[in-house]
């Protein structure tokens, strides 16, 4: 009977995620006025999909192992999703509800998968998610009472370097990279927090003057950050994320294609040199090129991952029935392979599409904003999520060499989860500031116009950097 339900659930899971992603892209098309749909309706359909996913997965878990802990876990998880999304849209009606839906869905996929892989880690992850959702709800409020954030570029870079150097001194290694600091029993990954300061620093540096002279300093400082990550912490994945974020922010603030393609060319050459110089990089690249030469050792991880993804039919083997525990660090780096194995490769493809929806939402926030600083922050943070999810999914499916980073909202890891929520909350904050351009509430557009008029009467300093510059010039 349990088996029969697991088989039925395979198709249900695919149905839920298909409806979810379909609604997501429909909303996007509708905003472009290509088609007309009822956006609030589509959003609530998505929420229903998330809740049904949670309930279906909970039933599968509970029927295969009936434990009190598990029932509490499932109920708390459900409460977190319902309460979290309810409060989020109540407190921030002008935020991107689609973005909230996306992260609540992938968060729940991660929660369910983690409990099945390792119930202890699942329980911890639930707590981290609770903290994360709390951050998601309060951060935009906090940010809106903060002063002008583009004035503190020195503070950002000093904090970033302080964190980076303290990791070098006090840090310890876990899983190959020396990027952990411990506070008593709790491990903490400063490189996750540095991401936010790094983006804020670059945004404040690039939002002013983008003459070559002004670009040199941030470029050198970013270079040092990346080198410290690679050389000091052996954290190749984070280094790549920082480098790409820097490059993208440099490019969008200057609109200079030469910088972008030059930067891409530079990283290609640098990777090639690194490949020649460092044996541990060579080992990774060789494991990527042909894991089948040495399946027992070097190619073991990637081979086990591909076995998990490719052995079963397109609908997967069924939730709880996989062999994912044969993959090393499946709860962190390789959770995507476990999802593909048990929910099916179709589900895996749709999961990538959800990440694409998140990127679209983040980019939209950046495009719609008139303020250069906020645009840069918004797109910088979006880039972090994009590059990070690309690196790890690409690594797990052998599209690119593996660099051990977490899959945002899904992989186990306290720091990663909480910081990911903060990233999203900042993107939402920027979207809220900009709500007139957001069209999720198309029927409320007149109301939104009214709000906008109010805003025009009481202008926000942040939206007028030019006037501020003028004042400064006068002062000089």
């Amino acid at each position, binding site marked *: *009977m349990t*088996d*029969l339900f697991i*088989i*039925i659930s395979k198709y249900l899971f695919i149905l839920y995620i298909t409806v979810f992603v379909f609604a997501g892209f429909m909303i996007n098309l509708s905003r472009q006025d290509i088609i007309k749909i009822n956006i609030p309706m589509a959003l609530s359909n998505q929420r229903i999909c998330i809740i049904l996913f949670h309930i279906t997965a909970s039933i599968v878990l509970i029927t295969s192992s009936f434990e009190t802990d598990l029932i509490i876990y499932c109920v708390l998880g459900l409460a977190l999703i319902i309460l979290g999304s309810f409060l989020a849209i109540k407190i921030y009606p002008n935020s991107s509800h689609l973005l909230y839906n996306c992260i609540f869905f992938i968060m729940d996929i991660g929660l369910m998968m983690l409990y099945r892989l390792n119930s202890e880690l699942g329980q911890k992850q639930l707590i981290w998610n609770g903290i994360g959702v709390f951050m998601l709800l309060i951060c935009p409020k906090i940010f809106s009472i903060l002063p002008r954030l583009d004035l503190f570029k020195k503070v950002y870079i000093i904090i970033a370097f302080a964190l980076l150097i303290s990791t070098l001194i006090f840090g310890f290694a876990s899983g190959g990279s020396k990027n952990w600091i411990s506070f008593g029993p709790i491990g903490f990954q400063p490189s996750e927090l540095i991401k936010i300061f790094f983006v804020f620093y670059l945004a404040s540096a690039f939002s002013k003057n983008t003459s070559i002279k002004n670009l040199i300093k941030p470029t050198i400082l970013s270079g040092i950050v990346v080198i410290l990550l690679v050389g000091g912490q052996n954290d190749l994945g984070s280094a790549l994320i920082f480098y790409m974020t820097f490059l*993208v922010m440099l*490019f*969008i*603030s200057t*609109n200079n294609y030469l910088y972008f393609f030059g930067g891409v060319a530079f990283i290609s050459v640098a990777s090639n040199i690194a490949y020649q110089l460092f044996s541990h990089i060579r080992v990774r690249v060789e494991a990527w090129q042909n894991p*089948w030469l040495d*399946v*027992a050792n070097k190619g*073991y991880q990637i*081979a*086990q991952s*591909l*076995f998990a*993804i*490719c*052995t*079963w039919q*397109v609908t997967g083997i069924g939730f709880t029935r996989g*062999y994912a525990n*044969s993959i090393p660090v499946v709860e962190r780096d390789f959770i995507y392979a476990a999802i593909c194995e048990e929910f099916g*490769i179709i589900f*895996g*493809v749709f999961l*990538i*599409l959800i*990440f*694409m929806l998140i*990127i*679209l939402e983040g*980019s939209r926030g*950046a*495009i719609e904003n008139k303020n*250069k600083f906020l*645009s840069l922050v918004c*797109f910088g943070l979006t*880039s972090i999520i*994009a590059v990070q999810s*690309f690196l790890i*999914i*690409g690594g797990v*499916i*052998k*599209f690119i060499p593996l660099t051990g980073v977490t899959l945002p909202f899904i992989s186990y890891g306290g720091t990663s989860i909480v910081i990911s929520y903060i990233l999203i909350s900042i993107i939402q904050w920027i979207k809220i500031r900009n709500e007139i351009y957001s069209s999720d509430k198309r029927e409320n557009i007149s109301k939104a116009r009214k709000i906008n008029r109010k805003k025009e009467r009481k202008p926000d300093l942040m939206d007028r950097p030019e006037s501020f510059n003028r004042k400064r010039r006068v002062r000089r």
Partner: protein
Amino acid sequence: MRKSIKFICWIYLIIFLIMIGYLLKTYFYDSHSFVANPMNPRLSQSYEGVKRGSIYDANGDIIAEDVKQEDGSFKRVYKNAKYYSHVIGYTVNGKAGVEAKYNFRLENVSNEFFQRVGNLFLKKDIEGDSLVLTIDNNLQEIAGKQLGKQKGSIVALEPSTGKVLAMVSNPTFDSNEVSENWAELNSDEENAPLLNRATQGLYPPGSTFKIITAAAVLASGGEVVDFEMDCDGDERFGHSVIHCYDGKAHGHVDLKSAFAKSCNIYFSEIGIKMGAKNLKDMAESFGFNKNIGLALEYSVSTFPMSENAEEREIVETAFGQGRTLTSPLFMAMVTSAIANNGMMMQPYVVDHSLTPSGGVRNRTLPIKINQAISPEIAEKVKELMCEVVNSGTARNASFSVSRKDDVLSGKANSEISGKIQVAGKTGTAENPQGDDHAWFVAFAPAENPKIAVAVLLENAGKGSNAIPAAREIMKEYLENY
């Protein structure tokens, strides 16, 4: 700035789409080459309460099936176990044979939803997929009987596809009683009953290797093809003396008569004349030192002679002694390649899977390994091999197929009747373990080959002793073709 953001956003989306494309390509196209890797723990899956798939021969006769016990559990029961044990293997004490290599398919529950519903409401068993082998029950039994108590192995292939039609190895064991006899089966080093001699046994090829030497000579072109000499029965090469079998003098010989009479001295001479490189290239072209891609456990046939080997080693290698080692299956593949215009086919034992509702899945398609020699040279070697049967060492290999009734009623293939031209080669392999091993490889009918056979009888003396077994198998097969 907006334009740049849009540009980067598009780049992200396109890269993600390419990644999805790569994932799907890996899943749909590349995965076939790696999911069967023994490091994949999913291959050894087994589900409680699932009836493991049955195994059928090519005609649909049951060879292995799960039988329900009184307590509701299943017990694996094998029919004709002593002839099939090496191919089928067993499911206890670590699996072996087809049971091990095709475990995934045998345990794979097709249309699981409907089977589970059927189980719930109609109490039907939940079944894994069944396998249909390429092996012909009839032929397998005859091959087994031909071996009798004799240690050795017989392999029969379909030359055009690589289908294994029969594969037996002696001494054998009973798949039904592996668990009970486990200690005994493993400790019997002298007989090694668990060893599949057909695929894992490595023997010196003896004079059957002259097929490859002759192919190398014909392929090298030049004067060596027309080489003629007088054979006195023994000849000195450097410090060693080479004998023909029993020191028999063959008189004046050319390639054709030397091949037919299996003159070692002639082949030693042409081996030296054409050189080690030609010989090694040809051996490797036939697939020595390479994996053959069989799904069962097998040993790679080895040809260790290097390009700059000494004269003594070239001489010995050229007529099939030296350090060369081959399995009976591999010699059957070499013979098949001659029959199949020089094309080596990958051997396979499982033709397709059957779902419980009768659907055909995973049909094995013949795979070409390598064009070992050109069709013209294959034709010439075939002529040499016909001469062996017509006037040489294998004269008792020829037979006639008579089945007037079937031909008249249109039931049988009228092409194959009357006297059948067999092409073959005998071999007598000296070995350090004792008496010579007897080899015979052959295919028939020569003009339109349907079956290729390799027979190896351990310590059974001269090669012609292996001829009757091969003849009976070919006759049986062609009579029922």
